[in-house]
């Protein structure tokens, strides 16, 4: 084993942001390069539409660039970027919905959606049983079935792996609202996936 001859400089978000704010456009390009994949994935998950996600990606970085002076550094740059991207993505969703009367970010909380219907153990590891493409499709379909308000929280917390606090900051929601939506999202996805991955011949009665 040989040691690499050149070592890439470590990614220092704060330093790149400071440089970008001082007018170094190369530093801003480095930030774009570092975060574009994640912003694009997040946009695709929330909008569930490739074309919208492309627009969201572009708008997010353009807005971030033009409002760079407004970024105070109280949060991580990435959390700030996520907040811009989520707003852009939700705007896209609103435009596509014919029914604009129900606000996307305010689910009607009846408490009835904390339910468990499917109780069955899963077959072997789904990652072994399905190809990456097949599994990707199953997961996308499951995410798509969530209400946007739940989907957004789930995508930020469980796919982008933001903390509860960062998710709450990025979405402008209280910690308890994030937690309650997250629980619902996770339980609903568990239901969907259990229908798909349950061990054949197994049923709830076996456990009652």
């Amino acid at each position, binding site marked *: 084993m040989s040691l690499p001859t050149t070592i890439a400089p470590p990614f220092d978000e704060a330093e790149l942001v400071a440089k970008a704010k001082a*007018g170094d*456009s190369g530093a*801003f*390009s480095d930030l*774009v390069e570092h975060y*574009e*994949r*994640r912003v*694009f*994935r997040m946009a695709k998950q929330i909008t569930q539409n490739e074309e919208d996600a*492309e627009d969201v*990606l*572009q708008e997010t*970085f*353009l807005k971030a*660039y*033009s409002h760079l002076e407004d970024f105070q550094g109280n949060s991580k740059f990435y959390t700030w970027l996520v907040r811009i991207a989520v707003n852009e993505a939700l705007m896209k969703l609103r435009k596509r919905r014919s029914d604009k009367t129900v606000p996307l970010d305010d689910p009607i909380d009846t408490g009835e959606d*904390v339910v*468990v219907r499917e*109780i*069955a*153990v*899963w077959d072997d590891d*789904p*990652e072994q049983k399905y190809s*990456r493409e097949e*599994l*990707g499709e199953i*997961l996308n379909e499951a995410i798509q079935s969530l209400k946007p308000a739940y989907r957004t929280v789930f995508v930020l917390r*469980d*796919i982008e*792996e933001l903390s*509860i606090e960062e998710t709450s900051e990025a979405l402008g929601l209280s910690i308890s609202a994030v*937690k309650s939506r*997250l*629980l619902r999202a*996770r*339980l609903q*996805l*568990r239901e969907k*996936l*259990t229908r798909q*991955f349950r061990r054949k011949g197994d049923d*709830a009665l076996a*456990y*009652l």
Partner: protein
Amino acid sequence: MLTCKQFLQELSDFLDESVDPALRAEVERHVNQCPNCWVVCDTARKTLKVFKGMDAHAVPEHVQRKLLSALEKAIADKKGVDASPPVGH
């Protein structure tokens, strides 16, 4: 002992390992004694695991090109504004 409903309310925090030790012990006790909740807990944990394994695909080249040229334009515009003489003097 926790009821199934109480267990369900704590499930998310339990999976995130953000419950205090006393409550954690209570949740574990329930899970170990209630076969249904054991299954729910196990499949919820697997649900999170399978989503965490999702790839972030590379941004397609044509999208990246579009983004870069839009940014270049924004950068040029900003520099143009900064370089222009102050108005009113």
